[in-house]
């Protein structure tokens, strides 16, 4: 990772903006700020940041529209801030091209972890050959999975889903994205994603009733825990 990654924070609430600025500066980011969608778009046009934090409740523009506009010529990862109850809005944001989300109120550590995962994700996604987290190891080329050194047999679709999660480790992967990864389309019922994730958990989780590797993001998708 290059030193001093640049970050653009788009939020209209001054106190949040202030806290984020201090915390992220302390964390080693070059911070730029925007409090409206229009301002954000013009900033991004001048200089593309490495990562973007976007509050979905901006006064001048709908969050989805901003993501859409940003995605026209900017592929920097976007982490969305949203209220806990707006999961439809969150799903829409992810569908439009946002990479992850944090619900407000958030713990700073949580946001920082999401940002790190987002910055890492892009570079890693395509070149990833091998993945390891908390005793779980995945060899992508050999399609081999092991837990604490013990090999685990996964069915083809189970492996495809786990690979999709691992490629986005630390980040949310939506039901839709998992459907695409496992079934090659989104015409299947998301219920099957749930069933398959259940099966994967049976095989890789120490206690499937208390999953520690694949976490559920209710209504949105799943997140594979990343070892940092």
């Amino acid at each position, binding site marked *: 990772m290059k030193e001093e990654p640049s970050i653009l924070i788009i939020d209209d609430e001054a106190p949040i903006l202030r806290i984020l600025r201090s915390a992220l500066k302390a964390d080693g980011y070059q911070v730029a700020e925007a409090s409206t969608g229009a301002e954000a778009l013009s900033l991004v046009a001048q200089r593309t940041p490495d990562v973007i934090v976007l509050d979905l409740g901006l006064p001048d523009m709908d969050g989805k529209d901003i993501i859409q506009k940003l995605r026209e010529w900017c592929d920097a990862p976007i982490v969305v801030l949203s209220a*806990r*109850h707006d*999961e*439809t809005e969150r799903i829409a944001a992810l569908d439009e091209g946002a990479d992850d989300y944090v619900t407000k*109120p958030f*713990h700073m550590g949580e946001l920082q972890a999401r940002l790190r995962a987002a910055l890492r994700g892009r570079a890693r996604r395509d070149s990833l050959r091998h993945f390891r987290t908390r005793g779980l190891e995945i060899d992508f080329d050999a399609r081999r999975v092991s837990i604490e050194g013990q090999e685990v047999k996964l069915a083809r679709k189970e492996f495809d889903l786990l690979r999709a999660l691992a490629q986005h480790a630390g980040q949310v992967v939506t039901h839709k994205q998992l459907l695409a990864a496992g079934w090659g389309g989104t015409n*299947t*019922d*998301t*219920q*099957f994603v*749930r*069933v398959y*994730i*259940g099966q994967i958990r049976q095989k890789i989780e120490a*206690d*499937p*009733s*208390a*999953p520690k590797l694949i*976490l*559920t993001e*209710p*209504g949105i998708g799943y997140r594979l825990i990343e070892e940092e």
Partner: protein
Amino acid sequence: MLENHHWRRYLPYLQAVLIVALATCAGYAWSLLPDARNLSLVFFGAILVTGAWLGTRPALFAAVLAFLAYNFFLIEPKMSLRFAAADVLAFVAFLVGALLVGALSGRLSDRAREATHRLRDVSVLFEASRDLARALHPEEAAARLVAQIERGGADAAVWLGAPPRQVLASYSKARAQEADTLALQVSRVLAGDDKPGSAPALYRLAIGERVLGAVALWTPTGEAPAPRWMDAMLELGAVAIDRARLIKEVAEASLVAEKEGLRTALLSSLSHDLRTPIATIVASATALEEHDAKFDTLTRLDMLHTIQQEGDRLNRYVSNLLEMTRLESGALQINKVVMSPAEAMASALERVSGRLKDRRVLRMFDAAAAQICVDPVLIEQALINVIENAAAYSPAGSTILTSIKPDRESVLLSIEDEGAGIPVADLDRVFDRFFRGRSDRRGAGVGLGLSVARGLIEAFGGEIKAVSPAAGGKGARVEIRLPAYASLEEPG
């Protein structure tokens, strides 16, 4: 109807004519016999029959007829009216007989008729009182009163309230226009200035001194005397209207009381439970700002930790208040999907794991339990609320047992704690808004958690209930029953 009525009035006279005609035929046949005597007795008999059967007037009418027929057909010279002095005696006898028998039988039949009428009145009134008693609103009572009066063959209109603001509450359809024009008279009747009038007759509806309204009555023949049962009917109407008014007042009063109670509870909850975390946060933050140098690292961390915890707590309160408001206003958007109950429970437990650090959490998830069809975010919220409630009312170090098992056509999720339990009387009330257990208040919320949980579970077509003591003889168990959902077949 009216013509029919007139015709009925003359029927007895027609019958009298028939009886006399029969008697004449019989007498005439008798007179043809060689030794015919006392022919007048045949007619006398006819008069007695008429009197006994039809009453005095038809009997007198029959007497006159009989005398004429007797004279005309049977007294020599036949087929002519010629009066002799002796005939006067027969005529007087006929009349006296008619009067006596008529009066006697009239009295009897009057009494019989009266008894029949009374019976009918009683049954009409009985029906009416049963019907009127069903009214829950004064207007409904008025409508039922009009309907009952119509059943009795009259038209009516009912006003409710005191003058000059009495309202025409109900009326017979045929009298709509007339009823409208009566406002002034009704006012006067209600004010007591006017005697109950006629055409239409106006009556006051009152219980004792209290005037409830007025009734206008149109009898079928336009005659002034109303049906005999009318007084009793109006009395019943007044009672029913008064009763309905009281019911309405009681209902309104309890509604106001409930709203008032809710507002008080909300205010006290806002003032105490929301202010406490705010006060803690502000106090800690200002302490850190002003005395930073004096604190050691541990104290500083402790204060920061407090700020974080209280912030989280505040967030939970506000979330539940928001959820409650959405539930009650019907603004809650529910996106149901089919999912495994174990996933919902695990996800809820994961989210509250930070607050369950000093509890032992047991999971008994039966893999045979079917899928459920719920909103994944909201079911998590509901389960979190139940789990947090279990944590709030049980001591540190105790066990929280979560279980999922199939139960006939449903799935049973339960959360059991080892706390003080819930008194039997409170088992239902724990799901009421702002209800809080009396025992350990430490960590307890605004009393919205279980109430929100119930609202959500019911929105998914499920049920929630509390059982106490739980299996171990202590603590409480909250059981959530959700409809089982069949799994889909996987394509290709």
